């Protein structure tokens, strides 16, 4: 909200910067526009990167996706740093209140021992999956092209770290450092977790940053979050005295819904750009969906037992519907 406190009214010479006038016409620009459009250098770049001499420092050629204007990939949330941190600080305050509430009311004690250990068995190894997501989004920020995509990728990476840290706090509240260690051990050695770890490690060596975006943000997290936080925590655990856990992972569900709007907008715009993009994105989605569904199956098993296959199928179905809405053909 702007309150007019001006003592004198003087007419400005111009509304905003020329590069924004060229894009949006001669009118005042938003802070998102000022802080995001055309900021990355794209002209007269000097020196070849020693870490990638095939490309320029900022180079659209680090992905097979082709865009005539990389600044078409608008973030519908219009997050610039200030808007982003304010949004997260509000969520953090709510999360803090939930942690206090759950702890002070001993809400986690409402779970029986079996439910409790199942919750930990499923959630603790996911700290590491979230760290993998963090590394991948950081990588997309480093390799991406144009501020409009590098900036939200960095926010997303920090969110991934936040998720890993919320899970850590949850583990410490439900157990102690040994609880985290058990989750780590499962991530490293339990048969049920190896397909997922193998998949995450495969993303860590995937070099096309847009493919990585599809693999990590769209496919893997697009299946994992609804499965784990939607189905397992909010439905299954909730029904078994685990409302406390559900409160402590509210950030994850909310965050998934919010960030999904951004991910969808990026994919929809890129797919609509050309038939080649559409084919490539569809192809990547198909390949990674197959791998991700396979990797999540033993975890769904552990989380949901007999109903796992059915729930996973539902999750996959709604993922497929989502992909179709974005213009992908699977």
């Amino acid at each position, binding site marked *: 909200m702007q309150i007019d406190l001006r003592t*004198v009214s003087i007419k400005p010479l111009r509304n905003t910067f020329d590069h924004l006038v060229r894009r949006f016409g001669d009118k005042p620009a938003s802070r998102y526009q000022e802080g995001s459009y055309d900021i990355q250098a794209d*002209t007269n770049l000097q020196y070849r990167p020693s870490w990638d001499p095939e490309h320029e420092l900022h180079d659209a050629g680090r992905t097979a996706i082709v865009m005539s204007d990389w600044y078409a990939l608008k973030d519908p949330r219009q997050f610039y740093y200030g808007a982003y941190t304010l949004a997260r600080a509000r969520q953090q305050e709510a999360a803090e209140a939930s942690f206090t509430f759950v702890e002070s009311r001993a809400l986690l004690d409402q779970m029986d021992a079996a439910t409790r250990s199942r919750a930990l068995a499923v959630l603790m190894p996911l700290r590491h999956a979230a760290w993998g997501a963090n590394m991948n989004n950081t990588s997309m920020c480093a390799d991406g092209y144009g501020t409009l995509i590098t900036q939200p990728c960095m926010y997303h990476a920090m969110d991934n770290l936040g998720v890993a840290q919320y899970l850590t706090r949850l583990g410490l509240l439900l157990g102690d450092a040994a609880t985290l260690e058990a989750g780590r051990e499962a991530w490293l050695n339990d048969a049920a977790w190896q397909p997922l770890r193998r998949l995450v490690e495969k993303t860590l060596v995937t070099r096309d940053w847009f493919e990585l975006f599809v693999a990590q943000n769209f496919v893997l997290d697009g299946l994992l979050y609804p499965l784990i936080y939607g189905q397992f925590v909010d439905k299954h655990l909730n029904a078994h005295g685990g409302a406390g856990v559900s409160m402590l992972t509210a950030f994850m569900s909310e965050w998934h819904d919010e960030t999904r709007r951004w991910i969808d907008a990026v994919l929809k715009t890129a797919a609509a750009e050309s038939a080649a993009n559409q084919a490539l994105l569809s192809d990547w989605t198909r390949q990674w969906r197959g791998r991700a569904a396979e990797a999540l199956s033993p975890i769904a098993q552990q989380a949901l037992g007999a109903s796992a296959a059915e729930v996973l199928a539902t999750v996959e179905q709604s993922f497929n519907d989502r992909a179709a809405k974005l213009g992908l053909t699977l």
Partner: protein
Amino acid sequence: MDMSVKKKLGLKEKYALMTRNLGWEPSYEKREDVYPLLDYEGIKIHDWDTWEDPFRLTMDSYWKYQAEKERKLYAIIDAFNQNNGHLNVTDARYINAMKVFLSAVPALEYNAHRGFARLGRHMGGVGPQVACQMQAIDEMRHCQTQIHSISNYNRFYNGIHDWKHMNDRLWYLSVPKSFFEDACTCGPFEFIIAIGFSFEYVLTNLVFVPFVSGAAYNGDMGTMTFGFSAQSDEARHMTLGLEVIKFMLEQDPANLPIVQKWIDKWTWRGVRLLTIVAMMMDYMLPKRVMSWKEAWEIYFEENGMSLFKDLARYGIKVPDCVEQIKKEKDHLSHQAWTTFYAAAPMTNFHTWIPSDDELDWLSAKYPDTFDKYYRPRFEFFREQAEKGERFVNPNLPQLCQVCQIPMLFTEPDDPTQIAYRQSEHDGEKYHFCSDHCQHIFDNEPEKYVEAWLPVHQILQGNCFAEGDDPSAPDFDPIASVMKYWHLENGRDNGDFAGSEDEKNFAAWRGMTTSNT
């Protein structure tokens, strides 16, 4: 169920569980494929786990404190803009410092954002990765808060209407641009010495502390707030830079010569870059807090030297260039301002001859050099201007191949002699402003021959406006280059005296203080 009382974890233990405990050694993929950038610079790291985290911010605290900073900052920017705060600055010449700032700095911050993202992904341990990631997101903050704070000046004053376009093209802006592109194209370890250590630790204090304090002194609350607010993040960044240096030096004695070489190179690169800040402090702040030389003595000689003394136990030596730097502090700002004054038609900010009391201030602050070498020059400029023959350098200056600054620096021991150095590579001659820039070139000629030097590019015909035909009989090369830069001749450039900025500011300020 387990009802035993839990041991309360300390900050350090808790932070370790929140960060480094998240990582793992890959086994399905090879470590060198997951972290492919760690070996090629020759730095040997044996145990990433011995990394010590300096600041231990988890994301929840990060969001909380950063949001608080942002709330304060934007409240001040909004109030400043809504009250026409730009009319409360000491005088409109000050705004030219902000033009230089916007033209040069946010683009650097953006490159730092990308560079630290690369390290955030590619460092070999979670501790340094997370610290680099926080810096990557902070740098986006700095880029944006700078644009947002200065944006209102663009609505009322000339010169920065197309700052991003100019940043990639205008001659003097290739100095900061090439500095960061140089750093970002280095390997990860050199990058962090360049930016995290030399730039952040040794040098940013000079930009963000005395200069920003000067902005406050000149009534610019918006700039003061973004400057100080940014520097509070820098405190984390500087600490990261220092931590990485110690870490490299502790890991393997073979790292020492490599690190020393980088420190030498980047201290010099950074000092050259700060030439423009020297000029901003001594000439562009109508009210002065301290001279460049004084700031330099506090933040470089005292503070920077404490740092080098501290690192001596690892075998790090004070860079050789420091000898020359000491000699230059009495000259730098004057040489830069006279160069820009003489190049006034080609810059996107206004220049002026200091007033008498400003000349006296400069004499007092630089007793050994100002009256002897520089005051006569300004008096000459003034005489010329009064005769209607405003002094302008008619030639395009030769640029240093490394720092890209015009040849304006004098020999360290003879302030009357411009320094020139020259090297040959592959049968071509290259020119430098100093021994140290020459030395940097000689160590990596393949890199520095790729420099995009604006003057060379102009002479080669690569900087004419699209559609202009250099073979046409009425072709005006200077006008065409200005068009290529998007520089509005007669509005953006030239003298402050008589400029549209000067007239508008006087008229608007009149409106705030009278009823007509």
